[in-house]
Every structure is written in structure tokens, then in C-alpha cells.
């Protein structure tokens, strides 16, 4: 008779906890609303908080609970509530408690401005089991609110953060690097070190901003202007050069190779992303109608069994993509994917010039390509990566690697 060990403590995270057999559905992302009480200049999704038409179309409390129940039956362990601003929903607390009582871990993406003492108390009593992720837009009221474009939002965010600190509710902070706050990066990192759950690590930043995922394009020209240039992006990424290089050596040894003609070479499809209106998408950013599945007329299981596998098998026929991206060994560095193509051009497979430039700027820094060389034309890419990984490359005085 085999009995012990009776109870085993598990470190269960989103990616690697089921060693023997992963659950059918690893995680679930739910955009509870596309509305937000901030009006950030760079945001690719937000609708006004008072957009009644959007609110009317959103999934009801019961519809969300039914989706969560279905996800649970498929083995889902983690749900991420995001938006828009998920705390805008009147039923947020109800949905949070429901999820936790069903045995789900909950990740919350928020701007923290709507966190009340009652909500902090709730998170203290019923912990989400995952750190809350808070986006911040500036260290000063002027910088923050020139991004959020809502008077009083700076104070509201810090009030929310203070409440979480008082109740010892774990959270981490993230930033968006914009012209309005770029000169505050050191101050932000110094401040972030005081957040116990950051464990001394610097915050992550977004700076290569996505365009509007619904392709409601009025704001896109502004977003494009807010993006850092590829060279500036590399300067920011490589501020801590040794750390960056060590990370990239590890990364390049694993992820750098041409992706071929397969459209979806990322991990999309193991988890699921449900938008505020009940459509399932392979990823949060990809809202192309051809890759959306209407859950109101089907089921999560059907989508995962019959719909997503077809998407995963999709191949591109776009000659431009086939001549460039399909042959490019910078695939790991480059953010080119169907979602980015969708947001920029309304297609699934058009090379995104900005992302191509960003990837090449990084590759030039790492010494993987030189000058005007295009990575898809490089024949000896395996050797170049091997040399880089073996630390044969050295940093030049110009900041690049030779």
C-alpha cells in the first residue's frame, strides 16, 4: 500500500505546473470591458468609461460566470481580468469572489485608480493568489495626467497603491515610456524598488506601442508619434548592458530561427482570450474577424478542439512575408505576428516595418547583422548566433557589438 507523501505543496504557475499532462485549457484571459476611466494617449483599446453602447454589449455577470465554469471544467487554473479597466465593472467583486471560490487564481491588470478600501480588504481576505499588475504613467502629477488625460487620476492611482500596501496585498508595477515621462525612468525604478513584491527588480515597460486593436484608427497617428525610435528603444533596453547581453545570449540560444510560412508560431491557442462581448481570440491583440469565435453560439471546448487548431495550421501566401519574415532568423527578436499585422494593416501577414526596424536595431547592437544588412539575406545566421552565444562578440566603443 503506497500512502505518503500525503500532501505536497505545489508551486503552480501559468506555464509549467502540469509536468505529466497539461490541462486542456491552461489559462483564460478575460477583457471584462474595453471601457476605461483613464484616457491614455498611447492606449490601443480604451473606450470612454461612459460609453453606454459598449457597456450594453458587454457580457453579463451570468454569461461570464458560465464561461468561467466551462473553463474550470477544461482544467483552467488561472484567469486574468483585464480591460479596459476591469474594476470599472459594477460586478467586478462578484466575479472575483466567484472565480476564487471555484479554485481559480486571478491576475488583475489595473491602473489602481478604482481600488477602494473595501476592495483592498477583499484582496487581503481572499487573496488573488497572483500579484496584481498596476500600470503607472508618470512619477509626477503633471507627467502622469498628461498621459492619462484625467484630472485627479494621479492621486487616485497612488491612493489605490497605498491601500494595497496597507493591507499587504501583493502587486507589481509596470510603466509605459512616453515623451511625457521618459526623463523619470530612474526615479520610477528607484520608487519601484520600494514595492516589496518587485523584489528589487526594475519594472517592465511598454514603449513599442501597438496601434488600436479594433482598428478604430483616429488615434493611430498619435500612437505612432509616441513610439520610441528603434535606436532609442535599443538604448533603453541596453541601459544595463551586461544584464541585457546575458539575457539575450540565453534568449538567442533558444528562440532565434526563421519561422517559415506558418502564421502562428507563438504560444497562442493554449490559453484563450475572451473579449468583453463574448468573442474568443487566439490572443488579446488579435481582433481580426476571421480569427474570432463567437462563444454565444458555441463553446470553449469546441473553439479549442475545432477552431483554434485550424488557425494554428494557417500558412501565409503573401510574397512579401515569404521573402522576408518567413526567412528571417530574427523571429525571436521581432514582434511580427498576425496580431501586429492586423493592427497595422488589417491583414494577418503583412510585415510591420516598425517592428522590423526595431528587431534589426537590436540585432545590429548584438552584432548579429551589420550596417544595412537584412537578416533574411544572411546565410550564416546559425554561426553568428553560435558565436554570440559563446560570448565571442565584444562590445565596441560605439555601444554595438563587433
Amino acid at each position, binding site marked *: 500500500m503506497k500512502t505518503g507523501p500525503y500532501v505536497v505543496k*505545489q508551486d503552480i504557475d501559468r506555464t509549467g505546473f502540469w509536468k505529466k499532462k497539461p490541462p486542456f485549457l491552461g489559462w483564460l484571459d478575460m477583457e471584462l470591458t474595453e471601457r476605461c476611466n483613464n484616457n491614455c494617449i498611447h492606449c490601443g483599446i480604451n473606450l470612454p468609461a461612459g460609453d453606454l453602447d459598449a457597456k450594453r454589449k458587454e457580457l453579463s455577470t451570468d454569461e461570464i460566470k458560465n464561461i468561467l465554469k466551462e473553463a474550470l471544467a477544461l482544467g483552467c*487554473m488561472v484567469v486574468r481580468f483585464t480591460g479596459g479597466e476591469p474594476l470599472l465593472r459594477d460586478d467586478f467583486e462578484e466575479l472575483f469572489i466567484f472565480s476564487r*471560490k471555484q*479554485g*481559480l487564481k486571478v491576475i488583475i491588470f489595473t491602473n489602481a485608480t478604482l481600488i477602494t478600501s473595501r476592495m483592498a480588504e477583499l484582496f487581503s481576505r481572499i487573496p488573488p493568489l497572483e500579484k496584481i499588475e498596476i500600470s503607472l504613467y508618470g512619477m509626477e502629477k503633471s507627467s502622469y495626467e498628461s498621459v492619462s488625460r484625467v484630472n485627479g487620476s494621479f492621486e487616485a492611482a497612488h491612493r489605490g497603491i497605498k491601500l494595497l500596501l496597507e493591507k499587504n496585498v501583493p502587486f507589481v508595477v509596470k510603466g509605459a515610456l512616453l515623451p511625457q515621462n521618459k526623463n523619470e525612468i530612474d526615479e520610477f525604478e528607484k520608487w519601484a524598488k520600494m514595492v516589496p513584491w518587485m523584489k528589487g527588480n526594475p519594472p517592465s515597460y511598454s514603449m513599442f506601442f501597438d496601434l488600436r486593436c479594433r482598428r478604430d484608427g483616429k488615434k493611430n497617428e498619435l500612437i505612432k508619434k509616441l513610439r520610441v525610435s528603434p535606436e532609442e528603444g535599443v538604448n533603453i533596453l541596453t541601459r544595463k548592458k551586461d544584464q541585457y547581453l546575458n539575457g539575450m545570449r540565453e534568449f538567442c540560444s533558444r528562440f532565434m530561427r526563421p519561422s517559415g510560412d506558418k502564421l502562428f508560431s507563438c504560444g497562442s491557442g493554449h490559453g484563450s482570450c475572451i473579449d468583453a462581448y463574448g468573442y474568443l481570440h487566439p490572443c488579446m491583440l488579435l481582433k481580426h474577424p476571421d480569427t474570432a469565435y463567437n462563444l454565444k453560439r458555441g463553446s470553449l471546448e469546441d473553439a479549442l478542439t475545432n477552431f483554434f487548431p485550424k488557425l494554428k495550421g494557417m500558412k501565409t501566401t503573401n510574397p512579401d512575408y515569404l521573402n522576408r519574415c518567413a526567412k528571417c532568423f530574427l523571429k525571436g527578436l521581432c514582434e511580427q505576428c498576425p496580431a501586429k499585422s492586423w493592427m497595422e494593416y488589417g491583414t494577418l501577414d503583412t510585415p510591420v516595418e516598425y517592428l522590423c526596424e526595431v528587431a534589426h536595431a537590436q540585432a545590429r547592437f548584438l552584432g548579429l547583422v551589420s550596417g544595412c544588412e537584412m537578416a533574411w539575406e544572411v546565410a550564416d545566421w546559425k554561426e553568428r548566433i553560435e558565436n554570440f552565444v559563446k560570448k565571442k562578440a565584444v562590445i565596441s566603443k560605439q555601444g554595438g557589438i563587433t
Partner: protein
Amino acid sequence: MKNKVGLGYIFKRSEDVAARDVYDEFIIIPITSGIGKTDDELFSLNSFGKAVWDKMDGKRNLKEVAAALASEFEGPIKKIENDVLGFSEELFKRKLIIKV
């Protein structure tokens, strides 16, 4: 010993945890804070543990639980009783079960 339990004890499953049978794993997930050492601990039970857990109904004492298990697991009843005691202590220590 604070968490020492006896065969006459009756336990019920805590309402502050969720138990889930996910494929080949039986997982206990804390709902409220104060379960386990940290708030993000989760626990998995082996097949024996799951069988005991299922019988922690707030009615049967541990001796009766062990007797019920004797039909599912091979071995001398004394050994099963000792294992039920050992398992119950671990659950009790972690506040996953409550003494009735």
C-alpha cells in the same frame, strides 16, 4: 502537540478552500488568507489523500474513515489508521480541515 489528532476526531473539509480534480492531479486551493504558510500555496493530494479527503464529511470519525478505506486500499487496518492519522494531522496543521 498542538496539531496531534486521534482516531476519535471528526473533521470536515474547510469551506475556505476549493478542491479540484484536474486531469491526473487533485489540487486544494486556498480561498481565504491564512491557509498554509503563504497565501499563494496550493496543495496536491495523492490517491490515498484524495480518498481520505472525500470521506472527511463532518460525520465519520477517523477510525470510521480508516475502516471505509480498508475496502479501497490493501494493507493491515493498523497501517491504514496510522496513515489516516498522519494525513489528517498534515491537513489540520494547514487549516485545510476543521475539527467538528
